[in-house]
């Protein structure tokens, strides 16, 4: 455990230059935006140039970009993400309040797409070229090709409005003062539909990689040898072919974490889940530059941590890779 922690620390340290690029790049990008936080605020409030100038001064937006960047960077070095003008709260609090919801959503959606995807991939890859294989391939692709927001809306219409089985949005029953297991179950019920919508989209990727991997393994000599030894088909499929094909899937898991975070922007909007994907959209709309930087930074850290965990799992599955070895 300690070794893993020190490895993680090393990984984060070597990522420092990358972080720097991310921060400077995002800052420059947002700097080019038409309209600043004051313009965004005045949309709802109204007010003249005098008020705008006063607000710009109060929010520190009348200083040069360089000065604002220095303030942001200095605070960041001290572990402070700064102040959100859109929420009138510290950015750290705003993000930490929403991060768990996104983690839950992403974690569950990843589990669903990985679990179901690899399972169906095994079914499809057990007999490459069969009807079952082709149907699964095309069906999963078709789901992948449905825009996430539309899939979400259809799920809502069917399961929340017509059948009334599940709540249509939010992370939990509002202001219900539930606690403990009761609250956990409540949250789980609320997450079923968004997790399904997000998970089903990525399912196709796992299914296809699993299937393709298995198709490769089938061609290998050792499988022929196993067959020659008369091992039952099911045993070959599961214990040998699928197991070997699982490795690329684990790598994909790490790669997909960033993509899924992006996908959560839309899903969180459709299902009114207060997560950081939706927060990012709100931050862009409010031109809250420090908040958006904070979100980008935390999602970058999240992606690095996920990839690190994936590496550990990979090492555990594949004896050829030692955990001490740093893979880029």
């Amino acid at each position, binding site marked *: 455990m300690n070794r893993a922690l020190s490895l993680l620390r090393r990984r984060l340290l070597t990522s420092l230059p990358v972080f720097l690029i991310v921060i400077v790049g995002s800052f420059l990008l947002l700097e080019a*935006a*038409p*309209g*600043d936080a004051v*313009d*965004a*605020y*005045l*949309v*709802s*409030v*109204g*007010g*003249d*140039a*005098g*008020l*705008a100038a*006063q*607000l710009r001064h*109060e929010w520190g937006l009348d200083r040069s970009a360089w000065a604002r960047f220095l303030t942001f960077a200095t605070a960041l070095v001290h572990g402070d993400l700064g102040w959100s003008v*859109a*929420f*009138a709260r510290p950015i750290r609090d*705003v993000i930490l*309040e*929403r991060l768990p919801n996104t983690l839950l959503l992403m974690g569950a959606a990843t589990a669903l797409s990985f679990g179901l995807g690899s399972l169906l991939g095994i079914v499809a890859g057990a007999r490459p070229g069969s009807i079952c294989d082709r149907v699964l391939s095309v069906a999963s692709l078709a789901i992948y090709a449905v825009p996430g*927001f539309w899939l979400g*809306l259809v799920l*809502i*219409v069917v399961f*929340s*409005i017509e059948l*009334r089985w599940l*709540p*249509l*949005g*939010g*992370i939990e029953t*509002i*202001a219900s003062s539930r606690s403990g297991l009761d609250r956990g179950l409540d949250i789980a019920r609320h997450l079923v539909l968004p997790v399904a919508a997000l998970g089903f989209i990525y399912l196709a990727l796992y299914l296809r990689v699993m299937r393709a991997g298995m198709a490769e393994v089938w061609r290998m000599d050792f499988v022929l040898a196993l067959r020659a030894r008369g091992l039952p088909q099911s045993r070959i499929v599961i214990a040998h072919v699928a197991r070997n094909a699982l490795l690329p899937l684990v790598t994909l898991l790490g790669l997909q974490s960033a993509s899924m975070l992006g996908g959560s922007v839309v899903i969180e*909007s*459709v299902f*009114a889940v*207060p997560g950081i994907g*939706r*927060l990012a959209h*709100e931050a*862009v*709309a*409010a*031109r809250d530059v420090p908040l958006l930087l904070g979100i980008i930074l935390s999602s970058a850290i999240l992606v690095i941590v996920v990839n690190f965990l994936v590496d550990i799992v990979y090492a555990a599955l594949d004896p050829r890779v030692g955990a001490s070895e740093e893979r880029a």
Partner: protein
Amino acid sequence: MTILNISRRGLLGGAAAAGALAALPIPAFAQQARRGGRLVVAADSEPRNLNPAIVASNGVFFVSSKVVEPLAEATFDGLEGRLATAWEGSADGLSVTFTLREGVNWHDGRPFTSADVAFSALEVWKKLQNLGRVVFKDLEAVDTPDDHTAIFRFARPTPFQLIRNALPALTAVVPRHLYEGTDIAANPANTAPIGTGPFRFAEHKAGEYYRLTRNEAYWGKGVPYLDEIIYRVLPDRAAAAGAIEADEIQLAAFSAVPLADLDRISKVPGVEVVTTGYEALTYQLVVEINHRRKELADLNVRRAIARAIDKDFVVKTIFLGYAVAATGPVPKNDAQFYTADVPQYAFDLAKANALLDEAGYARGANGKRFALKLLPAPYFNETRQFGDYLRQALAEVGIDATIVNNDAAAHQKAVYTDHDFDIAVAPPVFRGDPAISTTILVQSGIPDGVPFSNQGGYANAEIDAVIEKAAGTLDETARIGLYHDFQKLVATDLPLINVAEWGFTTVKRSSVKNVANNPRWAVSNWADVWLDA
């Protein structure tokens, strides 16, 4: 039904009903109101500043009007006292005397007095409020001879009519003891307001909901009926309809349910569509024009554009009939100021083409006369759809418009600060008096950056003179006459083109009672709203 009600009333005793009648008249045939329950309503945005004394906008009022009260509220036939019980203007237009309600306490228990009104008027409405800065600009002092009298003193004669019309939207009173000596714009009470209203502000969970709870010590007898109001944040515009059908929310105001869905949802059992209750919240669909463009500075071109717009199509197809065609800058449903006696521009493509030819902008080889940059305001589905329509309508007469699709912040900056547009689509609100938020749309000399104002570089000395004269005219008939002139001048010279006027719709569960019983219902205090079991 009636018999059942009478027997229920007999059983429960008439005390609560009688008390409610004293404060808020309920039609005699109304069902017996039931106390208790939680009303969940849809909210599509989360205003950062919830102080209605600073931010006089419907988005803020929707939540805060239940917490912070104005001096008076609009009714279908005039005004009804809230924190003031009587108001009287002097003949010289230099003072207005308000008699304030007695026995009112703030949510934190402190008594409400004339000092609160004086403070709110001088320090907040006049100095900080988006609309108050115009209407109360000449307010010099507020005398408080006793705790329940406030006398507003103006430096220049100010029409009492204007002050009266401004009462519902501009006079939310905030507690002096929490604001005095602080940075008012940054006061924590702006995000968790404390007022005198029927509901207290309980909490805001960002991204999820606002919660208001019953003010047990409210001055209105027997009200409010509801225990709680929850504003549930639904960021996707398509979500409210489903949430009502699934009974997860009971009410969606401000047309949160798309107009195209109303016909279907009105047939769902237990769901009702209400199209009243917005009479004093009329939104106007307006084409803003940048007069710095030489083509658009030509009156013939503006008249051609007016004639190229099929208002009938806009009303029938974009608003599905939930709007009326506009004739000028004052909406038809305003009984005080509206006049139909203005130049009209009927939809006529031949005439529009002829006007453009006459102006010297003949069609080029590709059939196009000139190109324009069109910026539809992103705030409503209807303003965007009208933008799509306008592009097509202009194409019919050879004007090649390109739509620039900005989000709210970029639109704000492009139109009102940088003037980087040729034509824009805006949804200004008419607030009961042209001097509150309407004349500013065409008046010259407004500094850059003021949203919903004349930023098109238009200047017309005649119109400016009428606006100026009306601002100091005390005689109500004469003032109305001046605004008739104003409407005529605007419709003649077309500094902007008024296309349509619309009120919103409310979709609710049948269990929600006393909805739309005043012309500003969505932004009124909801003290008498109740839920049938």
